């Protein structure tokens, strides 16, 4: 988040969500009913990882839909955040799930949840 974003309530709201939840997915639709194939793929990957995650349906609010692109300086949705860090979109998340990086990143969260 750059200095100029701090005064924007949408950017502040997104920042709060991203920092409050260990895993946050900004997506089109909901995990139960994704409305885009790319969002659907990331939901399937996260469900396989067996960690709880917060999902934000950007289709419900154009300000969030546009705002999240500014927040990450990333032009597409879905966007995955882990521990406040932007991880990537569908292509990057898919690659990280295939090479084990995502599992390694989520393992501590899964362990914390089980304890």
């Amino acid at each position, binding site marked *: 988040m750059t200095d100029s974003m701090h005064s924007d309530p949408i950017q502040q709201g997104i920042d709060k969500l991203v920092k409050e939840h260990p895993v946050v997915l900004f997506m089109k639709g909901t995990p139960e009913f994704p409305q*885009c*194939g*790319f969002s659907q793929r990331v939901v399937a990957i996260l469900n396989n990882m067996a960690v709880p995650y917060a999902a934000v349906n950007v289709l419900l609010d154009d300000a969030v839909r546009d705002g999240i692109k500014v927040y990450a*300086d*990333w*032009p*597409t949705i879905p966007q995955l955040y882990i521990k406040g860090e*932007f*991880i*990537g*979109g*569908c*292509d*990057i998340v898919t*690659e990280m799930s295939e090479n084990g990086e995502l599992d390694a990143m989520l393992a501590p969260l899964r362990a914390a949840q089980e304890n």
Partner: protein
Amino acid sequence: MRRMMQAMPDTAIPQPEELADLVRRHIPEAQVEVGLFSGDDHFEMRVTSSAFAGKSRVAQHKMVYAALGEHMRQRVHALALTTCTPQQQENI
């Protein structure tokens, strides 16, 4: 996927090769393979460049998005993107 019916800027959907040229122009030594995976505005692209060395995947993808500029915000409905360095290419 249904296209939005509201007025869109009157710009033509870019051809795959136009997108490849933009990437080649902006990213040094980029080798670009591009095609359509669905319809006429769902693109898939693979970019290999030594300029990606030492950069995170997010940074690599941002370089490609920057090269595509306004196309990314307008008529490119979807872009499935893979980036790698020539060294990674050899390992595949």
